């Protein structure tokens, strides 16, 4: 919709699966949109909602949280907790008019470099179509 | 009120406006926006002189050399429709803010602002201005005072600043001023002495039992002026920001390392009343309460300064006998 617009995306990737997956994508020379700035966290369960809201406050258009597939968490249950937390938060963001689309939650393992690339690409595309957040 | 319309063209006019059940001082562009039938505004006009948030200065870099750029006040403003109690509140704030070295931003706003008061024809149940040295029709701290009568307003021009606002055509009326409304009396004679004497009285702890230690009373008060200062930095630019704060909040006196001088609820609540009724009068010779009753009205747990003053007077009377 806006040709000059390039969305700012922050990605919180868990150290054990998704960050390794992103690494895999890199070492395999797969390419994806440069819109995402990646922050490595120990676990998707560690991602406090305030980190995401702070991103939005500082002008991020979208935030991606990516962790191990359910059942594969390095800490056994961190991503189960993340799943509940973000299911609720997404719905709340929608209610607040920020939009649930702007918070994406994905599960991506260390071997799924291609999956990571696909998810980032689709998210970036979706954010670009959605356009900038009105107030930022 | 056609005169106001004309004023609007020349200056920024802040006047009471109804916003979802609240009455707030806001810039108005049409006279019709101004609310005239109100008891008092939700917040006092202090928010213009000491805004909830303002930038004190910012830092810029010229060739890598940092330079501090002070904030400026750029507008001449007329505040319309403030009550006599709130005008006194501004006069009281002058004490700490204009004493040397004066607070630059406050001083600038003070110089560039004219005050058009609207005297009260009706008292609110929470009002007690006559007990603390003011009156519903007190003209001492405004530039112009308007008093509503049946077919218009009586205009009293108090200062030269006020005179400058008035068009030649509008002359001071000769009509007699209507009598001000009667107000309840709150004892205040010995209150300063009582606060000093009963500093260590368990009264404060008991009173603080039900206090929530929110900041409502401080933020609605025309004479509360505590503030906090912090830096905001973003990509190399920097601002030093000042915001309202309140002596009621936990951590208000906490220093790095954790020590907090006023750590208990009682000590914090006592600070509020001691400042108003003892410390401020010792420095500036008047108690820091103008009787607007906003804190009385808005306290969620009914900590009522009128009751505190009578309690203190009673303690004093008891100890004296």
């Amino acid at each position, binding site marked *: 919709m806006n040709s000059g617009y390039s969305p700012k995306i922050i990605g919180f990737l868990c150290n054990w699966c998704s960050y390794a997956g992103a690494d895999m994508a890199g070492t395999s020379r797969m390419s994806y949109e440069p819109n995402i700035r990646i922050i490595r966290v120990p676990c998707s369960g560690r991602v406090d909602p305030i980190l995401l809201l702070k991103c939005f406050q500082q002008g991020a258009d979208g935030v991606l949280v990516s962790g191990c597939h359910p059942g594969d968490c390095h800490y056994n249950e961190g991503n189960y907790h993340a799943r509940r937390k973000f299911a*609720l938060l997404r719905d*709340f963001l929608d*209610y607040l008019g920020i939009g649930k689309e702007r918070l994406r*939650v994905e599960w991506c393992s260390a071997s799924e470099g291609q999956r990571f690339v696909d998810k980032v690409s689709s998210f970036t595309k979706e954010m670009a179509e959605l356009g900038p957040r009105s107030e930022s | 009120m056609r005169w106001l319309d004309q004023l609007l063209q020349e200056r920024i006019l802040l006047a009471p406006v109804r916003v*979802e059940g609240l009455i707030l001082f806001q810039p108005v562009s049409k006279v019709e926006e101004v609310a005239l039938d109100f008891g008092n505004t939700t917040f006092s006009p202090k928010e213009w002189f000491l805004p909830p948030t303002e930038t004190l200065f910012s830092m810029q870099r010229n060739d890598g050399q940092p330079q501090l750029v002070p904030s400026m006040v750029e507008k001449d403003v007329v505040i319309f429709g403030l009550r006599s109690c709130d005008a006194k509140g501004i006069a009281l704030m002058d004490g700490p803010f204009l004493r040397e070295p004066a607070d630059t931003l406050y001083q600038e706003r003070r110089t560039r602002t004219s005050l058009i008061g609207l005297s009260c024809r009706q008292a609110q149940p929470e009002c007690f201005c006559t007990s603390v040295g003011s009156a519903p029709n007190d003209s001492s701290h405004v530039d112009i005072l308007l008093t509503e009568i049946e077919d218009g307003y009586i205009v009293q021009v108090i200062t030269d600043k006020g005179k400058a606002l008035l068009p030649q055509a509008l002359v001071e009326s000769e009509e007699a001023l209507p009598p001000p409304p009667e107000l309840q009396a709150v004892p205040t004679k010995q209150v300063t002495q009582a606060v000093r004497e009963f500093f260590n009285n368990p009264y404060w702890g008991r009173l603080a039992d039900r206090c929530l230690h*929110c*900041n*409502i009373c401080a933020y609605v008060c025309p004479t509360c002026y505590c503030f906090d200062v912090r830096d905001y930095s973003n990509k190399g630019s920097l601002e030093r920001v000042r915001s309202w704060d309140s002596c009621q909040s936990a951590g208000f006196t906490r220093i790095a390392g954790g020590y907090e001088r006023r750590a208990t609820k009682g000590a914090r609540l006592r600070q509020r009343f001691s400042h108003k009724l003892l410390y401020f009068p010792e420095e500036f010779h008047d108690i820091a309460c103008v009787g607007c009753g906003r804190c009385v009205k808005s306290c*969620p747990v009914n900590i009522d300064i009128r009751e505190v003053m009578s309690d203190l007077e009673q303690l004093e009377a008891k100890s004296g006998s």
Partner: protein
Amino acid sequence: MDSELIQQIRNQARDLLESGTVKGVIGYERASDGLTARPAFVYELAAVERLIFDETCTHNLVIYLRDKKAEKMAIVVKPCDSRAINLLLNEKQIKRETLFIIGVTCPGVVETSWNYKGQTLQARCQTCQLSKPLVYDFLVGHEPVEWPKAVPYLNVQEMENKSIAARRDFWLGQFERCIRCYACRQVCPGCYCPECFVEQLDPLWVGIRIAPKENELWQIMRAFHLAGRCIGCDECERVCPVDIPLSLLNQKLEKKVKELFDFQAGLSPEEQPPLATFKKEEKLGFEE
């Protein structure tokens, strides 16, 4: 005013103080307007006569227990307030044995502010289904025979049905008015952190500006920290000096928690709160 009920409260308070069972009694007394109620702390027998109970007793007194952990206190608790007791027991913030709960049955409370007593019941009372406190040591009053029939969450649904842009405008407009007095937090039984994130300096999450962005971050996080924990006393909304409809945020989260996890806060002192537990098999709308 139900004078029999008040007499029961006073008698109980007197017995407890006289026998030394409790250090003090937290109840209600008449406010300075002579019309509404305010919280009262009674430590002496002579002060027992100040205690009252009527439809203006809106305050949730359970918040005061956080300041009174050292000594055993008696507390007057309405059915809705008792959910806060369960919440705090559940979260190990208070000990049951240091409490004597004087439960009151409640026909509902009205809208009040200083010198104002409304005619209609508060919105929360119109959907309340609790006939008596969920937890108490001594019960006063009679259980109601009729139950409120209003449908809950109507306001939330109305908001949900608005367009996303309209919702955004609405909330920005509300948050813009916030003056960050933190009355909503101070009056909340669920807000007991020794240091709130909003005042934390290191890291500095929010900053001191009283301005739209900061206010929004504060308000969203305040509400979200109560997700699955808010017991619906609506005190935050009552105390807000700029009339932000905070219950509209809290109830939205309550409604969603009910839908997703079939949970309501404060109904039991033991049940695991929804964000402290999980089910392996749930998907919650996320693709695996």
